[in-house]
């Protein structure tokens, strides 16, 4: 699989909110100039 790099399109995935609702990542990036996504690791 080719590495995702700067300039590539981000994968638009549908995940669940903490309340169990479905949410697409695109809904977040389309609603602001920039979206910062932080994938948690065990240090938080």
């Amino acid at each position: 699989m080719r590495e995702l790099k700067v300039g590539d399109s981000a994968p638009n995935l549908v995940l669940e909110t903490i309340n169990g609702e479905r949410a697409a990542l695109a809904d977040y990036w389309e609603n602001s100039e920039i979206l910062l996504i932080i994938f948690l690791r065990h240090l938080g």
Partner: protein
Amino acid sequence: MQLHRHKDEFISYDTNVVFIAFSAGALARNWLQETGISFSILIDQERIAYNAFQLDRSLLRSWGPKTWLAYARLMLKGHRWRGIQDDSTQLGGDFLIDRQGKILFTLRSRDPSHRPSVEKLLQLVSDHHRNRET
């Protein structure tokens, strides 16, 4: 959490912040309560997004000296040890994405303590904001 203290600055650059967790919803809710953060959090128990964004898993790199040092620093600051929860080998990452869905910045963590500073992230969003205005 340091990021939370700079929430207003991110807002001023029209930057939305979303956390993605692979823990079950209850664990994620506990984490939100403990940290007191008010950013959005999405649950990815099947790690669809972790895989799509190509984030590694590594036992060796997850529990190296840098991780122990980071935990020691947190505990010295008064944080409570929560024990091992879920898969401690899963590494994280940080991504900036523009309104069109283009990736502006990537950092895939080499170990759990490897992450961009808040200052670096603010500089990147500030630069992007300025470039759009000119």
